[in-house]
């Protein structure tokens, strides 16, 4: 009807099968919600579905499938378009891998403690909605599934409804989601035009004019960006993501944010027509600030899951920078550089989905076995939960972009892209790229600090609470889930070049050119950005080197030394502290950073209350930080609305006569208008 012939492919079929499975799981769990067994059965269901979907996605990505058809559902006349192309396939892979691992984690959930009719039926529904967003082929279907995604995740966020904080988080989350959807509505309204061509193919056929394009861009960045958690709209994210059960938090942070990124890519790179250079500016600016800001929040926060949420904000910033660079290069006709930036962005989406899920699952394990998320109640878990600790360490190193893990691969590609900056014809961009590079470097260093802190406080040292001291290792399936993700992080780090060559068609589609010199490196696994002479990163070789030198060192030392080891009390310069509370705490760890960055970014202020000698009350150090994003963009408008509503509310309490006066007044006004008008 609108140009889309009925062309389907096995990959698309597989994806649809998975979707049906998800739906079946949801319905099943909803019907038998009284039986714990039925609820538990959701997860195996989801594993199968996710495996199928992920397989289909991978196949479609490699085969560069493009298939789709139209159903007589949704909007009348236009109908519902289903479409699968490399882009959807790639993000489909991200989504379903995330669902797969989190579902494996879910198998290990404690039947009596954790399973509830408020969570299990909505877990597959949520996965379903995310998949629908990816294969939607028209504006209506897209927003439909988009909003469905928000709604199902809202249910999960408020699943622990007795806690007022979670209710608040849920409210902020869904309202923010609605605002985002509204601005996406505008974006699609602009794309569709007055004629109402809501199908993506129709939009592609007639891209909007420059002014409308600008509006659409703004709408897309605001709408999808707020969902992804771009600063300063991010304030809902650290509330909502931690509120959900941990495996759902993993999905929200690791996967749903990527769906939002998909939305932006779909609109800006696919539907909006040929890019103009200044489109890149908001991406670069917002991205760079978000990257640094997110980490500053993270490094000063004292709640394990909230720290992870903030670091999600940071990574979204990095992804935005990547998108901005790709856009700028593409608009300036530098296809190769655009390809590098795009590759970096896509890889980072993939990588972040892995290590962030890993970290959240680990946090979930900690929360489950200690019942605490606050840094001041944790510590020393590496002894009680060695496996979790090991995997979490992998995650932490990956997210801090340390070799040989996957976080570094995308980081490296991104720096290569930044280095191509001088080729920009526009001075603004040429000036901006080093600035962006500096911000990225700062973010990378801060990330390391943040996760050293997180790991050190939670897993190292001595337990800070009884719960932490009595922690127990998490269940087998959870360990398996984390092992999978950790393995992916390592493989992704070693064989990033393989991943890149796998997504070449997608890069081609988005950037206009493939990566120029893949596979021209010295070894088949060396990652080459522009050409072999300019920049190579060969992870496997480095890994081998590390092994060799590590072994050599060990041999050397053990040959020379008697390998005698004695256990003794901690030395601590001869001042062993009895109480574990005397350890360096999370806030004391971040104090130097707060001193350096806090004052400028958060208007941090310290007040010290030192009692006089002889006075026996304790001395106090109080620190006040301002979260300007929250205060200005969230709290203030909310207050304004309430205040205005209080004003207007007097209209509910007038006398009948004054209501009559209103009617009369309206009539007279209209009559006067009429009298003047004609």
């Amino acid at each position, binding site marked *: 009807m609108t140009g889309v012939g009925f062309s389907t492919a096995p990959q698309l079929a597989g994806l649809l099968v998975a979707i049906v499975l998800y739906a079946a799981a949801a319905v099943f769990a909803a019907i038998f919600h009284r039986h714990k067994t039925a609820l538990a059965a959701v997860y195996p269901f989801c594993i199968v579905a996710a495996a199928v979907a992920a397989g289909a996605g991978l196949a479609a990505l490699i085969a560069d499938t493009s298939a789709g058809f139209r159903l007589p559902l949704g909007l009348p006349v236009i109908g519902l378009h289903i479409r699968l192309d490399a882009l959807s396939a790639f993000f489909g892979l991200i989504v379903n891998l995330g669902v797969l691992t989190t579902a494996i984690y879910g198998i290990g959930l404690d039947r009596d403690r954790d399973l509830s009719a408020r969570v299990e039926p909505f877990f597959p529904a949520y996965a379903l909605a995310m998949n629908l967003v990816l294969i939607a082929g028209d504006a209506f279907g897209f927003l439909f599934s988009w909003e469905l995604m928000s709604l199902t995740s809202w249910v999960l966020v408020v699943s622990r409804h007795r806690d007022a904080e979670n209710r608040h988080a849920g409210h902020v989350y869904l309202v923010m989601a609605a605002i985002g959807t509204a601005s996406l509505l505008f974006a699609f309204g602009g794309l569709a035009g007055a004629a109402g061509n809501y199908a993506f193919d129709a939009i592609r056929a007639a891209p909007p004019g420059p002014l409308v394009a600008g509006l659409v861009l703004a709408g897309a960045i605001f709408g999808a960006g707020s969902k992804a958690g771009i600063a300063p709209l991010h304030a809902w994210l650290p509330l909502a993501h931690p509120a959900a059960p941990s495996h759902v938090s993993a999905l929200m942070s690791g996967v749903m944010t990527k769906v939002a990124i998909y939305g932006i890519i779909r609109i800006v790179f696919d539907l909006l027509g040929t890019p103009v250079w200044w489109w890149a500016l908001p991406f670069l600016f917002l991205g760079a600030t978000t990257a640094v800001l997110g980490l500053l929040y993270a490094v000063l926060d004292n709640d394990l899951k909230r720290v992870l949420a903030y670091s999600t904000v940071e990574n979204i910033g990095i992804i935005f920078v990547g998108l901005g660079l790709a856009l700028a290069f593409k608009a300036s006709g530098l296809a190769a550089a655009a390809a590098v930036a795009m590759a970096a962005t896509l890889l980072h989406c993939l990588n972040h989905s892995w290590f962030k899920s890993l970290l959240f699952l680990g946090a979930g394990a900690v929360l489950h076995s200690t019942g605490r998320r606050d840094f001041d109640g944790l510590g*020393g878990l*590496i002894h009680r939960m*060695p496996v979790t*600790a090991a995997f979490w*360490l992998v995650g932490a*190193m990956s997210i*801090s972009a*340390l*070799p040989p893990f996957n976080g*570094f691969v995308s980081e490296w590609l991104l720096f290569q892209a930044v*280095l191509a*900056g*001088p080729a920009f014809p526009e001075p603004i961009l*040429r000036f901006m790229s*080093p*600035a962006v*590079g*500096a911000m990225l*470097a700062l973010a*990378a*260093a*801060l990330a*390391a*600090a943040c996760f050293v802190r997180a*790991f*050190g406080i939670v897993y*190292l*040292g001595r337990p800070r609470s009884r719960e932490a001291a009595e922690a127990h290792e998490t269940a087998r399936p959870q360990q398996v889930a984390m092992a999978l993700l950790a393995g992916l992080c390592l493989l992704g780090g070693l064989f990033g070049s393989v991943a890149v060559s796998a997504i070449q068609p997608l890069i081609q589609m988005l950037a206009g050119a493939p990566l120029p010199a893949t596979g021209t*490196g010295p070894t088949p696994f060396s990652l080459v950005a522009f050409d*072999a*002479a*300019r*920049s*190579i*990163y*060969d992870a496997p*070789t*480095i890994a081998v*080197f590390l*092994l060799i*030198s590590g072994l050599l*060192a060990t041999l050397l030392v*053990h040959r*020379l*030394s*008697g390998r005698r*080891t*004695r*256990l*003794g*009390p*901690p*030395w*601590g*310069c001869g001042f062993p502290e009895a109480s574990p509370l005397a350890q*360096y705490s999370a806030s004391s*760890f*971040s104090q*130097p950073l707060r001193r*350096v960055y806090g004052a400028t970014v958060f208007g941090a202020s310290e007040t010290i209350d030192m009692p006089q000698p002889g006075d026996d009350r304790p001395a106090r150090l109080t620190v006040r930080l301002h979260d300007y994003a929250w205060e200005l963009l969230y709290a203030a408008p909310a207050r304004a609305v309430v205040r205005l509503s209080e004003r207007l509310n007097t209209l509910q309490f007038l006398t009948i006569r004054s209501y009559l006066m209103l009617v009369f007044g309206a009539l007279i006004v209209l009559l006067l208008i009429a009298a003047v008008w004609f």
Partner: protein
Amino acid sequence: MEETLTLLFGQTIQMFLVLLVAPAITGITRRTKASFMRRQGAPIIQPYRDLIKLVRKESVIAENASWLFRSAPYAILAFTWVAAALVPTFASGLMFNWAADAVALVALLGAARALLALAGMDVGTSFGGIGSSREMMIATLAEPAMLLVVLTMALTAGTTRLPEVAEFLISAPVTVRVSLALALVALVIVALAENARIPVDNPATHLELTMVHEAMVLEYSGRHLAMIEMAAQLKLVLYISLIACLFLPFGMAPANTGPAAWLLGAAAYLAKLGIGAMMLGAWEVSIAKMRVFRVGEFLGGAFVFAFLAILLAFLTREVLN
């Protein structure tokens, strides 16, 4: 085949060269300081002795130390060593120089640092915590600065591969550029901070609340301490050779040249190292240590310099093409 073997050979040489030279460099620095202070000071080979002694001693570990604490020193040494082995020293274009470019190099050092900081927190004493937190704070300023410096060089040379940068600087008639000068200053500051030298940290102190690096390694002893000391010395070498490679690569044997040229290169390299070490010593006696919270501003300066450098580099590129 023949050639590959030679390159492999060269690479191996470099690996062990840096390892062997490292303690001596520290020794030279200490010796220089001593003589500036009118002390006799320990002989240059003292660090070797210390290392041997440490290795031979039994190592005492806190009961509540974890596997991470025990394994960290090996990993730290490995990371630093690989990094040091990959920086072009006496010859460029060795077997595996290409494996890691400048960015990767920074990341390798970052990994080592992160592990050290974690190890510092493992036992759960407040000193370890102080050390780690300050180390990471310093890193958040030093690492970006370093990265920017590296990128500046890469920009001027049009590549992030250090050998190529060196080659470029050797071959190209280098007109002295402001950006390079700024970059040099920034890199030196970073090097001081990263190697825990005065004015950022004082390698010779203990039991002071001002210490950073030493505070992290307080709990280590015996062979573990030895490895960490070794890593620290390697790091010093690495930075000096990096500065040498980036700013005065002269005398370095160019790619695909035989062992003969390498000897010359090696000589030049050792000379550079020696000079670097002495200059470091001289610098350390000539100035005092800063308060920890002044460090932020100090390194902030490095960051600013580096940023200016890369900015100017971009502009010059603009002039060039």
